[in-house]
């Protein structure tokens, strides 16, 4: 709640300013700043947090505006009622638009979104709604939101914006926001961490569409005239993007900063230069945006924050974070180091039978079968391109196998989506690390905890525990962007651990680590196994693995080359040949 204070203070200052300003033109600007800030926030909830940029939020905005106009013209309803109705319409259209469009990613998503408002623009023109005006209500102005005192518009807009800010913050701080951020940084990693990406994305576009619809409905009340280009036009969608990107994407402050700066600047330029050198205002406005984006590519908010943080890093390190968990922070390792590992218990946790995967003519994985016993460490090795990562992707559901079975804990999991497998107890890390750089270590790990946690508190608790188990507690409050490679590797393991997996798939966890670092990580993996975790680890260097694993599975050209004890496998001539070439076979045997 402490962090709400700045926002409430800002709102209070704005309200005071509103009451003081008597010039109706300045008052209109005060209203429009809030309208565009709200619209920017609506866009931000979907595009800012998921990273799927929408060029088409005018679709929701326009539907909202037309809801007000048509509702008042044809049904004589008041905007007080029509604004909530517009929110419902916006939400429903969000669902209808999101469902097919989320099949697309990146630029394709952005372009597809662009099409919706453009199509709607023509539909509304075709329906004969080229120009609508909200009928003037001379006898009951208040009931129809037609205030003679323009300050009331600003106050209504302020209340609306405040509500949207609170919604955004609630989203940002909950598993909803965490899920969206995780999807933004890496949808695959998010799925692997147990997040049902499609469901969360749909929730975000429904919420975003609902807010945009309400804002559009209010905009119609302010503007009083609704035309398809003025509410469905490219410029409307662009306005949301501009204020959010200028101010900072993915934060509640971004669109607020963007709107507070850009709307008045644009209008002042229009007012001062429009009649003198017509058109120059657009040039200056455009140049100003270009300069700011060049100087602050992630938006004003993030650039300023980074600068402030850099200045006060040491001070910040001293201050305890608000999110500090109640869980006790145990020392990194209390267990005796030399304890012998217990042998595999014999019970089979994962059984792979005849697994194959082809990409066209390429057989990436051919007829692979093996068992993983509870508590053991399985090393999957093989030269580059042997099909190791493809095998992992088959195991955790990123790819459907062409044939074969993956039986996890007695259930055939073929065809399950990654987040389902994650919930069932299969956790994984990635060869290419996917940290969420702007989140703290603890929050990075927390993303992985939601798959098992029933509530925020439990998620915090699970995350703290996982951080502790990999020995990252001392750096738990650092931003992920500040970590070393080793710490990032450990953080990825912690993120997988937070979801309480029973089988941990580690993809080249030792890659890029120095000798000493690799040993540290190895020790941690060993300790996990000792505590009962079952681990399958991919590596292409054999050395570091020999001491770590209980059993080796060697792949070459997608097929199993050897399967057995480390000692035995490293002496296998076929393995040596696959790794080093024929002439080394004799050499090694000598």
């Amino acid at each position, binding site marked *: 709640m402490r962090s709400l204070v700045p926002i409430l203070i800002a709102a209070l200052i704005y309200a005071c300013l509103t009451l003081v300003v008597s010039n*109706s033109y300045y008052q209109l600007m005060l209203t429009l700043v809030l309208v565009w800030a709200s619209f920017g926030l609506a866009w931000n909830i979907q595009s800012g947090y998921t990273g799927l940029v929408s060029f088409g939020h005018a679709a929701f905005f326009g539907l909202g505006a037309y809801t007000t106009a048509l509702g008042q013209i044809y049904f004589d309803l008041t905007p007080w009622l029509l604004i909530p109705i517009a929110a419902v319409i916006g939400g429903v259209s969000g669902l209808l638009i999101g469902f097919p469009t989320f099949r697309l990613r990146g630029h394709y998503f952005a372009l597809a979104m662009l099409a919706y408002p453009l199509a709607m623009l023509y539909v509304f023109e*075709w329906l004969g709604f080229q*120009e609508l005006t909200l009928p*003037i209500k001379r006898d009951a102005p208040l009931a129809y939101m037609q205030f003679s005192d323009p300050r009331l518009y600003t106050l209504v807009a302020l209340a609306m914006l405040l509500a949207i800010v609170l919604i955004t913050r609630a989203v940002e701080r909950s598993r909803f926001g965490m899920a969206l951020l995780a999807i933004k940084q890496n949808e695959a990693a998010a799925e692997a961490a147990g997040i049902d990406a499609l469901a969360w994305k749909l929730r975000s576009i429904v919420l975003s569409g609902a807010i945009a619809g309400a804002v559009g409905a209010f905009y119609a009340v302010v*503007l009083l005239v609704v035309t398809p*280009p*003025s509410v469905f036009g490219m410029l409307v969608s662009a306005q949301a993007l501009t204020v959010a990107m200028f101010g900072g994407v993915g934060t509640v402050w971004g669109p607020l900063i963007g709107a507070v700066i850009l709307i008045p600047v644009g209008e002042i330029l229009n007012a001062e230069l429009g*009649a003198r050198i*017509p058109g120059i*205002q657009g040039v200056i406005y455009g140049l100003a945006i270009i300069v700011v984006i060049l100087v602050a590519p992630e938006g004003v908010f993030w650039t300023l924050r980074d600068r402030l943080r850099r200045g006060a890093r040491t001070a910040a390190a001293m201050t305890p974070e608000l999110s500090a968990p109640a869980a006790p922070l145990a020392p990194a390792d209390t267990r005796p180091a030399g304890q012998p590992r217990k042998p595999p218990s014999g019970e089979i946790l994962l059984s792979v039978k005849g697994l194959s995967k082809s990409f066209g003519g390429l057989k990436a994985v051919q007829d692979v079968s093996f068992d993983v016993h509870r508590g053991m460490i399985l090393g999957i090795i093989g030269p580059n391109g042997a099909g190791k990562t493809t095998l992992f992707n088959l195991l955790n559901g990123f790819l459907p196998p062409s044939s074969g079975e993956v039986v996890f804990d007695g259930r055939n999991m073929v065809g399950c989506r990654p987040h389902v497998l994650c919930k069932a107890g299969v956790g994984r890390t990635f060869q290419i690390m996917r940290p969420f750089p702007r989140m703290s270590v603890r929050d990075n790990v927390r993303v992985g905890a939601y798959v098992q946690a029933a509530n925020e508190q439990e998620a915090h608790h699970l995350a703290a525990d996982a951080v502790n188990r990999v020995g990252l507690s001392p750096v738990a409050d650092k931003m992920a962007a500040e970590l070393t490679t080793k710490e990032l590797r450990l953080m990825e393991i912690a993120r997988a651990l937070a979801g309480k997996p029973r089988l941990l798939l580690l993809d080249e966890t030792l890659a890029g680590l120095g000798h000493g670092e690799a040993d540290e990580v190895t020790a941690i993996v060993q300790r996990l196994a000792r505590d009962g975790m079952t681990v399958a680890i991919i590596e292409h260097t054999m050395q570091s693995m020999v001491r770590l694993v209980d059993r080796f599975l060697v792949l070459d050209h997608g097929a199993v080359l050897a399967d057995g004890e480390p000692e035995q496998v490293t002496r296998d001539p076929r393995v040596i040949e696959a790794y080093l070439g024929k002439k080394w076979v004799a050499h090694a045997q000598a």
Partner: protein
Amino acid sequence: MTDHTPLALTRRTMLAATALSLAAPRAFAQAAADVRIGLIVPLSGLYARPGAVMRMGAEMGVDHINSAGGVKALGGAKLKLVVIDCGDTTEKAKNAAQRMVAQETDLVAASGAYLSSFTLAVTEVTERAQLPVLTLSYSDLITDRGFKYVFQTSATAGSQARQALPLLMKLAETASGKRPKTVAIIGDNTASSVASVKPMREGLLKELGLELVMDETFTPPLSDATPLVQKVRASRPDMLFFLPTVISDGKLILEKMNEFGLGQGRIPTISFGIAIAEPDILQTISPDLLQGVITCVGSWATKGHEDLVKELKTRFNEPWMTQNAISTYGDMWLIKEALEKAGKADKLAVAEALRTMDGGPSKYYPGGILKFDEKGRRVDAEMTVVQWQKGIPVTVFPQKLAVAEPFWPKR
């Protein structure tokens, strides 16, 4: 000045003194303070060009009024134009209007805002600020909202739709001595073209005894106009309604018609609106191709405006005078008349003067009189028919306003 009688002088002085003491106390010391008039038009963005032309008309109007002695009822007070850019979106237009009424509080009237969506947005603001606005925009909605401070000088879109066809029939009869019997339509599928054609298809043609012999709708951009023009040649209509939105489509069709020997007015080719008669079109289509093309517009430079056209050409290098220039020029005179009638530089009084005015035949708007009905529409407003003749679109109908004879094939 010298030919005024002493009586008129006294009355004028007295009125001016009253007006000044009532309306402009701070200007007491001056003999006659400037009377400020707003011109809120698009000067930037997509519609900057028509906005600029409106400004030319307004500046000429103000200069002529001032050099003719200003507003006599206000002691020869001069008019002063306050130009405000209303941009290229409805929101910018609304903002500009709000700025106008908040910042320029001494305006007595305004003219604007070209596009009817802009005019709608602007007048939502001016209505609440009780500032009278004259507009050349067509939309019926502008004066259908029960507003008291907006005055439409052109015939509304609805009225134009009713007027245009009978007007063209009359033109054809006068020019060729025969009543057209068959028509063809070539239009694209954009909203405005579809809207213009719809009433014709739905009974208007039948009412006038016209047979629709060919009706083609295409999607812009057109890659080849041959099939369309071939159909025109085959059906040989007495009139062709020609409604392209994209200039390149218009060019393709006109080129093809010339190639087939149907151009140059051999088949009377009729468009609607101002776009086909704007000077800009000559950058894309050569005047030879346009020869004979007819369009119906709300207003145009007509008989009696020759000096204005000449002045516009020398002063602003505009080749001819479109509705935007002549209508806005007329607006300045109309505001001046209202000021004379009101006797004071006060927006409420000017609005009341406009409402009650009965200024006789209109000099700068086609047809009708200088009087507004209870909605704010100019009584009996008519429209003009303009034809491209030797590289210039000239008014050819109604006859009393025509500056040239229309040519229409006599066969």
